[in-house]
Every structure is written in structure tokens, then in C-alpha cells.
């Protein structure tokens, strides 16, 4: 396994553009086109399946945000939907041979830092700067280092979780492919015929079964988890109700 390849360098600025960046733009284009296709020509009484699907998706995200964060935070729904779509399509892009963009720590760290900024921002908005700073001395001033560490550990654990799951899936899939290739060349290698020896006997079909777990299930689960964690942490600093 290697890190993302550097595809080209922006001249004069010396910024390396890696595979991850290009894949992220592709995923963003796919999500945008999907949204435009789903929402063009909406009608009051839906007639097309396309509009029904769009309404179902929107109400699903709205319900998720309502149930987890409460009605005050319904304006978070677009962000959560965007995060979910980008994370899931980005992880699933490994199915068509791209390097999944969430297997790059930078991507997940960016999402976790966004969540961190939103958590602290929401805390300051609700309690004021004085209340926010005082919160670190809760319940006794002695706890200050522990509170600081637990705040900083939040984005680290969030980003490592997403990155680790997808990267582990990628490593295991590539190990599996090479192991299956070795196995089929070992078994068919006894036959002195070049065509027979080159048949990918075990690589056919078998990886798909494991791919269902490591790529499809994990992608969906991790997208769900990072959205849930963002919602829980952001609304967690709100003690009203």
C-alpha cells in the first residue's frame, strides 16, 4: 500500500495536487450532478419516481437531524446530508478502482476539524466566551488538563476512526487480491499451458463477497457514524430543553 500519488504540481505556488484532491473533485461533481438531476422540474404533486426518491432522501436526513439534535438545529440538515453523501460516495469510489478519498487522513481530519470548530462555536454562542472558558474548569479547576485533552481527543478519534476503517479495508482488499493471485497461479501452474496458467481462477467472484463487507458496509457505516458523531457532539453542548 502506498500513499496517494502526486498527479501534478501547481507551478509558482508549489502545491502538490494528489489523487485524493482530484477524486474529491470528481465526487463533488457526482454529488452535484445527482442533486441537480434529482431536483429539476419539481411539482407540487409528485408524479415521477425521481421526485419521490428526492423527497424520501430529504425527509430521511431531516428526521435524522430532528431525532438527534432537536428542532433548533434543523438548519444543520444540509451540512449533514452533504457530509454523508461525500463520505459515502468517496468511500464507495474504491469499487470502480479509484483510491477512496477517505483513505487519506487529510480528508477525515478536515471533516473532524470542521466538527470541532462547530462544537466550540456552538458552545461559545450558547454560553458566551466566559462561560465557554469556565466550562473547562468544570467540575473542579483541577480537571483543566483532563478537559483540554478530552476536547482535543475528539477530532483525533473521529478522524482516525473513519480513516482507519477505510484504510484497513483497502489494505485487506489488496492483500486478498495478491493472495488469491498467488493461490491460482500455484494451483494452475502445474499445468504446462500458458493460457490455462493465466486464468484468474480464484480472483473471479470471491473478492466480491468480501468487498460487500469491507467496501459497501463499512462505507455506509462510517458515513453514518461520522454524521451521528458530528450531530451528537454539536448538540451535546446545548443544555436547554
Amino acid at each position: 500500500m502506498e500513499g496517494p500519488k502526486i498527479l501534478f504540481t501547481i507551478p509558482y505556488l508549489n502545491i502538490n495536487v494528489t489523487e485524493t484532491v482530484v477524486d474529491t473533485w470528481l465526487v463533488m461533481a457526482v454529488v452535484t450532478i445527482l442533486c441537480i438531476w434529482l431536483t429539476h422540474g419539481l411539482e407540487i404533486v409528485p408524479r415521477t419516481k425521481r421526485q419521490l426518491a428526492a423527497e424520501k432522501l430529504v425527509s430521511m436526513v431531516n428526521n435524522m437531524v430532528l431525532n438527534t439534535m432537536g428542532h433548533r438545529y434543523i438548519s444543520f440538515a444540509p451540512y449533514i446530508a452533504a457530509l454523508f453523501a461525500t463520505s459515502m460516495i468517496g468511500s464507495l469510489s474504491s469499487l470502480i478502482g479509484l483510491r477512496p478519498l477517505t483513505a487519506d487522513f487529510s480528508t477525515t481530519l478536515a471533516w473532524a476539524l470542521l466538527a470541532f470548530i462547530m462544537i466550540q462555536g456552538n458552545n461559545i454562542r450558547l454560553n458566551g466566551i466566559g462561560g465557554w472558558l469556565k466550562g473547562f474548569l468544570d467540575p473542579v479547576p483541577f480537571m483543566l488538563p483532563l478537559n483540554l485533552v478530552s476536547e482535543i481527543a475528539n477530532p483525533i478519534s473521529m478522524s482516525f476512526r473513519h480513516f482507519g476503517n477505510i484504510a484497513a479495508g483497502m489494505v485487506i482488499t489488496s492483500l486478498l487480491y495478491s493472495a488469491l493471485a498467488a493461490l491460482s497461479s500455484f494451483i494452475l501452474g502445474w499445468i504446462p499451458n500458458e493460457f490455462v496458467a493465466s486464468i484468474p481462477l480464484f480472483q473471479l467472484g470471491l473478492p466480491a463477497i468480501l468487498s460487500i463487507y469491507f467496501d459497501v458496509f463499512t462505507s455506509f457505516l462510517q458515513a453514518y457514524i461520522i454524521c451521528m458523531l458530528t450531530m451528537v457532539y454539536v448538540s451535546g453542548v446545548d443544555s436547554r430543553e
Partner: protein
Amino acid sequence: MLERAIVLAASAVGAGLAMIAGIGPGIGQGYAAGKAAEAVGRQPEAKGDITSTMLFGCAVAESTGIYGLVVALILLFANPLINLL
């Protein structure tokens, strides 16, 4: 050359040892899944809520294992020790 070989071998062993961290989340997630199965058996109509809560808890419990995995990945693919020689 010998130093390099020793560092590489020790890194490989260390990566293997780091993955022992997988035991903890394995036990924890199994416990969570067992409790969720019990809960579904007691209250089958709340299956959806129980499943999503269980998956959420499992994913959070997984983080210690993921830390071990990240350490192993760093030792195997982005070894910082080999540059210290």
C-alpha cells in the same frame, strides 16, 4: 546495513504487537451485539432503534482498536524510525 535490518525487523514485530489491541474492541463489540440481541428478543418492535444504537456504540468502542491499527500502518508503510539511523 545491520542496523537497518534490525530496525525493519523490530518495526514488523511492533506492528504485529500493536494489532493485539484488536482484542479489546472484539470483546466489547461482541458484548454490545449480545446485549442488542437480548434487547431485540425482549422488544422486537424496537429493532431499528436498537440496531442503530448498537452500531453507533460499536463504532465508538472501536476507536482503541483503530489507534492500534494506525500505529501498525505507520510502522509498516510510513516508518519514522528508519530515518533516525
